[in-house]
């Protein structure tokens, strides 16, 4: 079922945790709330689950306003970060708890418990107590317990953060598969951007109580709406400079004494959104505008110092990620750039201090960060 938030805001005392925000999660959609610690993700989920009362705004489930409904009558399943299994009940009793509340017959309860444990592949552990299970197993039981009551929407608050990396990746896939199988509308909280990118239909990037951007993973990665989003998702090079008109409708990005040609669509979207299409010269009145250029590290390449193309610099840092190398290159003129070179592509390692040239590769999709509202 659809989740709609309109103008929802929450303060603890006089400390605002959420500024008024609107958010719609479509039927069957998997949406991730992504943001740094303390940005209000848990607060938002708890408002939907009914554990936190918003100071203003309404919460809708489908067409029903549930803002004033008590938490135990919302049919909103919340999976807790700590799993919150009942330690004094067996796995089967845990899963049956919500069904007993709903006064299902013994037989139907048992059937549903079996079905759910089967779904999460935990049938053989039905008589164990939570303490006798591993973290990943506990989490699957918690998921079965929630799905058993067939909630209208599913909320997950960092369900994977307590697991080690290997298990987390495995559970990511499994969770995504299970949720797709059930087809339930899902909101998922994480501060792990990789998790967000791999699992979601849409990502809501949050920043200090606001939603900075709400879009598909591809859009958020390629076309971030602000420097915050750009630097929060993926590695990024943010270069400050000027956009200046060049030739017929084209433009260049200038920083230091360097200039890079810009594709027209990047300029159109970032420089003056909303105005009729036209040359950059027309839109800027022929003058330069200050902007920040985003270049992802995998859109840059390193060339030998003897090459003529590219910008000269020296290797300042080096990091081996396994599947790729990350170089930090100090430009002779300008900022330090991060360059990602896939392993097997680089012709041998470059030592720190080595002179190189940096060039945009063919796949490069540079992006100008739109100006904040109100700026020129």
């Amino acid at each position: 079922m659809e989740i709609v938030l309109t103008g929802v805001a929450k303060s603890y005392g006089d400390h605002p945790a959420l500024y008024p925000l609107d958010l719609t999660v479509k039927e069957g959609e998997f949406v991730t709330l992504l943001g740094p610690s303390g940005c209000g993700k848990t607060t938002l989920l708890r408002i939907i689950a009914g554990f936190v009362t918003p100071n203003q705004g309404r919460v809708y489930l489908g067409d029903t306003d549930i803002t004033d409904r008590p938490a135990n009558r919302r049919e909103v399943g919340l999976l807790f970060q700590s799993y919150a299994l009942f330690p004094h009940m067996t796995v089967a009793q845990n899963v049956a708890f919500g069904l007993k509340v709903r006064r299902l017959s013994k037989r139907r309860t048992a059937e549903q418990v079996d079905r759910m444990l089967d779904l999460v592949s935990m049938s053989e552990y039905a008589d164990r107590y939570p303490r006798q299970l591993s973290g990943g197993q506990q989490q699957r039981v918690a998921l079965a317990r929630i799905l058993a009551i067939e909630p209208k929407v599913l909320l997950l608050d960092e369900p994977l953060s307590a697991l080690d990396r290997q298990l987390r990746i495995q559970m990511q896939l499994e969770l995504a598969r299970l949720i797709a199988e059930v087809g339930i509308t899902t909101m998922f909280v994480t501060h792990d951007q990789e998790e967000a990118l791999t699992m979601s239909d849409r990502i809501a990037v949050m920043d200090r109580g606001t939603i900075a951007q709400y879009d598909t993973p591809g859009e958020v990665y390629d076309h971030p709406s602000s420097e915050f989003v750009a630097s929060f998702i993926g590695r990024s090079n943010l270069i400050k400079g000027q956009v200046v008109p060049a030739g017929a409708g084209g433009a260049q990005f200038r920083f230091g004494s360097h200039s890079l040609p810009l594709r027209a669509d990047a300029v159109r979207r970032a420089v003056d959104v909303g105005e009729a299409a036209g040359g950059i010269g027309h839109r800027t009145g022929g003058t330069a505008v200050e902007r920040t250029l985003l270049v992802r590290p995998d859109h840059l390449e390193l060339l030998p110092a003897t090459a003529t193309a590219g910008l000269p610099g020296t290797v300042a840092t080096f990091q081996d990620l396994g599947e790729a190398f990350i170089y930090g290159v100090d430009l002779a003129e300008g900022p330090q750039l991060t360059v990602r070179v896939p392993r097997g592509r680089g012709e041998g390692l470059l030592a720190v201090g080595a002179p190189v040239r940096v060039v945009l590769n063919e796949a490069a999709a540079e992006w100008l960060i739109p100006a904040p509202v109100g700026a020129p």
Partner: protein
Amino acid sequence: MADPGTGGCAMTAAGEALEASLMEPERRRFRAIPAPLLPATIVMIVLLVAPLAVLLSYSVLEVNGAAVEGGISFATFGRLLSSRYFWFLFGRTFAIALGVTLLCLVIGYPIAFLITRVRGWLRAVILVAVAAPLLTSGIIRAFAWIVILGKQGLVNFALTSTGLADEPVSLLFQVRSVVIGMTQLLLPFMVIPLISAIQDVPAETTHAARNLGASEFRIFWRVLVPQTVPGAAAGITLVFALGYSEFTLAMLLGGGSFNYLSIYIYDSMTSLLDWGRGAAAAALLLASSLLTVVILNLVVRRLTRWSRQTN
């Protein structure tokens, strides 16, 4: 095992104890006392175990008054166990201790629950009120109850002056006053373990229950209370063992005609100078108390299977 020299004295001793328990189960009792506990162990033996052994030995010796006259004999036990009065007293003591335990549980649980839910000065006030009996002497406490419950006491004053009763009700020097006094005295032994048990219940489990649709009533009985069984068991054990052997309050609040197992032992020893009978009754008191506690713990172990790591 790690180098025994690096772990310090306690570690070494613990390591040795562990080793002993692994290698020689039948001998571990003698080797398991870690060296740092030795002084305390000696004090316990000299001040507790030895006098107790001497006392209990009187129950199986032929004694006349306080003088040992012959060898081993179980005649005293026989005399005691064939006495109807002793069985009556035994039953009454057990029933009162059990009743006080149940009262403490029923009163203590809401108090403990309240203490975990309130903050600041209110919490401090309730805590001090509950713990106050531990801070005053037994005799003063008993006299305070006499002032409250006596014929001219506070309760009767309130009853007669408001017209709820025509003449003073007798509250004192009965089973009733002993139960009231003991419940107040032993309440903290119930409340304090319960507080920590309630605080140990993860708040998220109650949230999860609410999220699954449970009412507050169901959350309380099905989620919260079961998780506090270990704490309740600790409280029940303490209150029962202490109430079962309580002496001062029984003596002072019970009045002259009230009898209790502990008073019976006291009378045997001091007034009648029948040390054999006193010792035998003491042995039975001790044994039945231990037995009750053991049975109780077996029941609790069964109820709290979930808190153990493995099957």
